[in-house]
């Protein structure tokens, strides 16, 4: 039975999102806060895109959870 928490889809996807979130702060807020695209800071675009990715991640994760939990 392989139930390593590091392979749990919730942990994997959450860590991925958190890494991307922190990276977006460093790159767009720390390094170049003035960078813009179509009138909006790239920092804001990054947050919006990350939120959409997050919602998609929850949908993708539902069947993956059941597979992991039944191992």
């Amino acid at each position, binding site marked *: 039975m392989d139930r390593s928490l590091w392979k749990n889809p919730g942990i994997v996807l959450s860590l991925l999102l958190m890494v991307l979130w922190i990276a977006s702060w460093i790159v767009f807020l720390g390094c170049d806060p003035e960078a813009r695209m179509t009138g909006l800071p790239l920092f804001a675009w990054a947050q919006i895109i990350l939120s959409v990715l997050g919602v998609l991640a929850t949908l993708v994760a*539902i069947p993956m959870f059941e597979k992991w939990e039944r191992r």
Partner: protein
Amino acid sequence: MALKTVELTVTILYFAVCIGIAVYFTARAGAGSTAYWAAERGIGVWVNGVGVFTTLVSGGSFLGFLGFTGQFGWVFAGVSLATGTTLGFVLLGLLVGGPLRRYSEVQGKFTLSNFFTERYGPAAGRLATMLIIVILWIYIVPQLMAGGMAAQYVLGVSRTLAIVLVGAVILVYVLLGGMLSVTWTDFVQGILKFAMMIGLSWVAIDTYGGLGPLIEKATVEQPSLMSLHPKLSPWAYVGLPLGIAVFITSSPHTIMRLFTARSVRKGRAALSLTAALCLVFHLFGYLGVGTAALVIAPDVLRTKGYDKSFLEVMDALFSPLLRGLAISAILAAVMSTTAGILLTVGAEFSVNVYKRFMRREATDREAIRASQILMLVIGISTVVGALAVKESIGKLIAMLVMAMGSAFSVPLLAGIWWKRANAVGGVLGIVGGLASYLAAHWSGRLPAFTEILVAFPVSLLGVVVGSLLSARPSFEKAQFVEALHTPTD
């Protein structure tokens, strides 16, 4: 301010429907504690998803946080709120929702502190109960302030009378029906709230000939509308969304809604729906409404406060009928959040205080009755509090949600996912997180909205160091964690 007849009629009709739903579910709610506190664990994806959404979207979302758009710009208000709430529900769905829904079903428990008691022992459980009751008690105050502002607009009565009326109506329907009626009422309320915010935003953008012209006009009043505000630290753009996300992953009144889901799978799907609703609501809603407020009533916002943004835009752009529905939406926001909080506090008191310390042999019905008396006391005292407080609604709510998240998020996540986490770590995580948040906030040394950036790591350190420096948890605790991730069917 005069009485607005059409708006008032629509609002009264709306509340009649809400009370009707509460009365309809009264008989079923009285059947036992699972029915009263967890809606018989029979709620499907759509009703639960909208119900969770409506628990989060409070009076502060309409009157407090929306006002940040005019005060600090849409990048701070709309984007931060959208990101914080959406990622909060995403993390709740990925890390917390399934295991806690399963815990509730297997153990027959309904509250967050029940979980802390079984995972970390009675000291952590009691601490959690006490903090949840105190923080949520205070959290009702800004909700009633927002409700009072809306009722004052429609009734043309004094602020005092408006707050008292709103408090009375909320108490009646929570005391009557419990979670079952609240969940079904919230489904109606959630749809209304979403429709009114998005509808008003749409009308505002359309009225000014599109988004470009509207933003151009509003930028004259608020030059930082679409950029970082010079008076805010860049850390605030990290702290606010992170604080909200952290709060959502551990907010007791949201978590209690997870227990109402028909199954673990449906609970997770409901949270996906909630996350999507939050994203659209804050991003698009704040863009149109918050921006239009700067064009329509800049002087009112500057002199009477940015909390009035929604009311001013609605007053200018909606017909009386739609204004009645919009006021109902604000009152619905106040009502649903306050009702959810009252139920959470009531459940905490009933299960963890009354039945444990005051009357061990009490029946479910007696315990529910005792908690209803407490809810009545809380309702009355928070009305008094709302009359006294003059702080901005948005700032007050931001402070409370971040305090709550600082205390509970790390211990909760560690309790679910880290078998090595133990009682010492759990207590240190709760105390360290909350104490460091309060110290950072009251010292005034950190920029606004950034306290969570200190409190979160301190709580993490408390859990990790406390757990590693003390004895391993028992084998039973490890099995308890394992069971959270194991299907029961």
